[in-house]
């Protein structure tokens, strides 16, 4: 309980910090007043239409990635399973890019998250099929490499074929993710799908706990594995798809956060779900604040920061796994 209170407080602090930091250089009191009061002036516009959606999306997307990472790791019983690493986010990005560049997203706003959902769903299914029920690290990473590479290549292809000269330069956005200049529209577009995903994933806790003992034992404990699998695929698809549709593929959050928090919650898979959701929100908020503090005028991508934090931890994880095997 103390872990949850601490993490919640951290997320709340970072959320407020995220609202207060920006290139416009408004004082903290002034900005919060503009946020609450709302006089249609430029300050209110900045707070309500730029900073608030950005902070909300950071919480939503970070929480989703943390939750999805913890759930996938729990199901595959492998600490390397992560939506970004194994190509689920990449395939979601491909879906989103297709929706945008075929014009479907303009004709019908929900086409964007839905196409991303389809992409994410296919990504999850391919990885789960390739890695098998208990994904060994090798098959998981190989499956991830293959799916990521294919999704990235197809995304680049779609963007290169676009008649819009800017499109080709946006590969980096879809591969690295960014929350810059998002609006409330994006929040509303992603929220319903994410809510469904959170609901689905939140019901997996007990099944994931039971899976600690293996599939056979879990099944004999009354866990319906088919339901569990469906819930996992559905939940991960919803949260990763919706998140990627509005902010691109942000990597390493789902890997790093459960890895750090696992010892804190005694490795309990069900408790790790919510701890990782909060931790993920904190990580993306921090990364998004860092992006704005380090190079404010360069639109540094979020994935750059998360990868700089995440990649060394990933290597450490692999090293640890290798030592355990010996």
């Amino acid at each position, binding site marked *: 309980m103390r872990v949850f209170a601490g993490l919640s407080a951290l997320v709340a602090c970072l959320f407020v910090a995220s609202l207060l930091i920006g290139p416009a250089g408004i004082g903290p009191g002034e900005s919060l007043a503009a946020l609450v009061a709302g006089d249609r002036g430029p300050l209110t516009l*900045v707070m309500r239409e*730029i900073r608030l959606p950005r902070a909300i999306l950071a919480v939503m997307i970070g929480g989703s990635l943390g939750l999805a990472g913890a759930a996938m790791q729990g199901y595959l019983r492998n600490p390397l399973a992560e939506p970004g690493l194994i190509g689920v986010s990449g395939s979601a990005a491909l879906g989103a890019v297709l929706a945008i560049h075929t014009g479907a997203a303009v004709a019908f706003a929900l086409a964007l998250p839905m196409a991303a959902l389809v992409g994410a769903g296919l990504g999850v299914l391919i990885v789960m099929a390739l890695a098998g029920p208990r994904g060994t690290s090798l098959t998981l990473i190989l499956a991830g490499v293959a799916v990521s590479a294919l999704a990235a290549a197809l995304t680049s292809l779609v963007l290169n074929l676009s*008649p*819009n000269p800017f499109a080709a330069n946006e590969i980096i956005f879809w591969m690295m993710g960014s929350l810059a*200049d998002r*609006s409330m529209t994006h929040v509303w577009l992603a929220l319903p799908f994410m809510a469904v995903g959170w609901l689905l994933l939140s019901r997996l806790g007990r099944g994931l706990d039971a899976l600690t003992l293996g599939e056979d034992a879990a099944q004999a404990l009354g866990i319906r594995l088919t339901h569990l699998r469906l819930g996992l695929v559905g939940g991960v698809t919803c949260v990763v798809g919706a998140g990627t549709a509005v902010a691109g593929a942000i990597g390493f959050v789902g890997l790093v956060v459960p890895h750090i928090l696992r010892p804190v919650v005694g490795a309990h898979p069900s408790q790790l779900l919510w701890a990782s959701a909060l931790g993920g929100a904190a990580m993306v908020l921090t990364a998004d604040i860092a992006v704005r503090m380090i190079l404010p005028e360069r639109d540094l991508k979020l994935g750059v920061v998360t990868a700089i934090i995440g990649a060394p931890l990933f290597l450490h994880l692999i090293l640890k796994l290798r030592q355990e095997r010996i």
Partner: protein
Amino acid sequence: MPPAIRHSTSASMRTGKILAICAAAWGAMTHQAAATEVPKRVVSMNLCTDQLAMMLAGQGQLHSVSYIAADPRASAMVEEARALRLNHGLAEEIYLMQPDLVIAGAFSTRATVAMLRRLGIPVVVFEPAYSLADVRDRILHMGDVLGRSAEAEAMVADFDLRLAALQQDVQTRPRAVLYYANGYTSGDQTLAGEILTVAGFDNAAADRGYGAGMKMPLEVLAVTNPDAVITSQPYPGASRSEEVLAHPVVRNLRAVKGAASITDHDWICGTPFVLRAIERLAQDRETLSGGAE
């Protein structure tokens, strides 16, 4: 992709050598002629030089322009361009056209320009125009290069006349921000910035210290709260870069302030078409001031 090009040249070294020898021989003959005589077969591979050349070249003198010159979103002279052969700025394609002069922009691919020169084709590189004064320079330079100096001088005289007519004393200068894809703006010392100023606007981005091609964060735009936000015309096929132009903040500013000017093909290049852009923008300003009163 310079490494790829380098690789392919070394791979086809022998063919390259033969080509180079032929080209050198042929180039030597034509090059001397070009120095004294007027070029007869000119290829332009940059949107802005395309348009200047089309305006100034004599009958049959211009052989080919870039394909972008035929794109109505970027070019003000689509009809004229379609009558000519279009090139895609590739060295092989241009070499086979056997031009006696190639005109390139400063931003044309360096590798292409270097290769053409190595093959013995004279290439003239034009700097982009950063101001209205630059526009006059470029016109005269193009006249020089094409051996059409008289026509160029006439065009500059006309340009000066029309520009002088447009220069007027504006009492209240509305504050405007130029806002392009990815949140880029144009401040001082840019052609677009000067168009804005001559049309009677105050460049609010320049007041905030923004120079050429700098990124203005959305929140700075909101706090600047300009009287007009002048955005670029969106390209077909959506892009995330242009999405910022539809952000509620930009939409809001544009909706509240009324006038919704858009930069188009007249703004892009330093040609006399910028005068048309100024005229149109000045009209928008009058609507804006009229609406405000």
